[in-house]
């Protein structure tokens, strides 16, 4: 017993070194290079960030991520509740379909939406009279973003719901709570950590999405450019200052989002 404890307590120098090298080369070095590049010519970086095209692209990315977040939290929680608590024909199938975006290449998803909503697309007769532009416009970009981020909240919440079981909800019902009260007062607080970690993944994925929004949006500067496509163009045109600025803002936003959701998770875990 004592020996086992000593063994477990002794730091494994070799393994620690491997992990350290891994973290430094894969994460720290590239991030460092990014910050160093931005700092090199700080004036140019900031000036580039203030350009309307840059601000527009950033704004679009933030709008896409926020909208996808709201939609997928609402839908994901509803889907998880239905998939875990209700028994119906085809439940398994729905579960698989929800997970499918994880296995699909984003470019392919963009193409799929193009087939549906493009000028000769299947749904063109429906959307044209309504006067909505989907392809090369914000609605199309939102659709693909929602699509690629769809499984995260549903999945995380589903796992938690399964683990929780339904006895607390039953207890609430016998105590006189109606379905809404049970959901808001019992279920929601219990699944909040799952929603938070799903939300963190949604935000990260939505903000980083490139292929799908490029295909459906076309990355038209000032109209459908997002932060990632903006960086791509900037790099292509050798405008490193512009690329650096937006990249740094993206990293900062990621960290802020991660921290927020980590706090939510920490709070609800007792």
């Amino acid at each position, binding site marked *: 017993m004592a020996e086992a404890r000593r063994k477990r307590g002794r730091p494994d120098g070799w393994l620690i070194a491997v992990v350290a090298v891994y973290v430094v080369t894969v994460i720290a070095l590239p991030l460092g290079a990014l910050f160093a590049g931005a700092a090199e010519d700080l004036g140019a970086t900031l000036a580039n960030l203030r350009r309307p095209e840059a601000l527009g692209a950033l704004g679009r990315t933030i709008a896409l991520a926020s909208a996808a977040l709201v939609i997928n939290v609402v839908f994901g929680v509803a889907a998880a509740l239905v998939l875990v608590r209700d028994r119906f024909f085809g439940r398994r199938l729905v579960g698989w379909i929800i997970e499918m975006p994880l296995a699909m290449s984003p470019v392919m998803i963009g193409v799929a939406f193009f087939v549906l909503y493009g000028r000769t697309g299947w749904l063109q007769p429906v959307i044209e009279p309504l006067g909505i532009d989907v392809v090369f416009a914000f609605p199309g970009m939102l659709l693909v973003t929602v699509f690629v981020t769809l499984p995260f909240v549903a999945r995380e919440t589903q796992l938690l719901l399964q683990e929780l079981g339904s*006895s*607390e909800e*039953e*207890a*609430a*019902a*016998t*105590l*006189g*709570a*109606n379905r809404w*009260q049970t959901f808001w*007062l*019992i279920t929601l*607080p*219990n699944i909040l950590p799952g929603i938070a970690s799903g939300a963190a993944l949604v935000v990260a994925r939505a903000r980083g999405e490139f292929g799908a929004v490029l295909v459906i949006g076309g990355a038209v500067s000032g109209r459908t450019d997002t932060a990632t496509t903006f960086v791509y163009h900037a790099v292509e045109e050798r405008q490193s200052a512009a690329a650096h600025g937006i990249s740094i803002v993206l990293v900062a936003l990621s960290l802020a989002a991660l921290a927020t959701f980590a706090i939510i998770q920490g709070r*609800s875990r*007792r």
Partner: protein
Amino acid sequence: MSIRLCNVSKSFGPVRVVDNISLEVEKGELLALLGPSGGGKSTVLRIIAGLEIPDSGEVWLDGERADTLDAQQRRVGFVFQHYALFRHMTVAQNIGFGLQVRGVEQLERHKRALELLELVGLHGLGDRYPSQLSGGQRQRVALARALAPEPRLLLLDEPFGAVDSKVREELRVWMRALHDRIGATTLLVTHDREEAFAVADRVVIIHDGKVEQIGAPVDVLDEPATEFVAGFMGEVNHYEANRVDGELRAGPLAFPVAAPDPDRPARVVVRSYDIKLWVNDPGIATVARVTTLGDRVRVEATLDGGLPLFAHFPRRSSLLRGVAPGARIAVEITHARAWPLP
């Protein structure tokens, strides 16, 4: 509140968990549903609470048809086997929940929670979270929470199943005293015979989804209606007996009970404490094993002809003098019950 179940049945898939059960419980009574695990007792309780919808049959609460009411509308207090306390709420918030959803003010709720904590003997623990309590304390919180909205009926599903045996005995005594004080009709599900006998006015023996017998503990003990009940009421020997010279016999044993059907063999049940044995030569059996189980001693023997027998005696019983493995003994059955062979 009085309860009446009429021909209630419920299946889960191909398994009929509750099979045509009818039952009446009077107002203020404490009734135990007793039987082996998986026999359908908990499902009966859940049907009464509205957590499970019966496939057929009727549920009446206080003379009112209740099948169509949701759990939420039945005003029934339910204590779950694993407590099901709200883990993100404090003890006081847990207890106040039933009042909160009815729109009772925060201050009033808190006052009531403190009263109930006092009642269940957990004074001062209102600000704790469930994870900071022991099993016995959680059980009491679950009970206080169920009592807070003043339910007409209290349903307890294996309430002492998850606490250790010493605490269980204390809770039992306390539970009965509490029932006598507040007087709410109470149904308790348990697989523990002693527990049912210790607290209940009447017990309902449920097996394979059916009611085997309903009665006061002593009646069920002394007048078991079926072989199953006789077997469930304690450790027993089962024999298949034939009528020989007007007596029911199995091997060298004679049973002091009339044959249920003179022309057919019978199933005989003999309790481990309805047997006398003493060292005797030639005797009719050989002692195989003697085991001391705390305050009693278990004697296992093989009857001539090969049938087994076991009996329990108080630790220092004079009958046990010389009873050791290999000893020859005489055996007398002092009490037995017989049923026709199915």
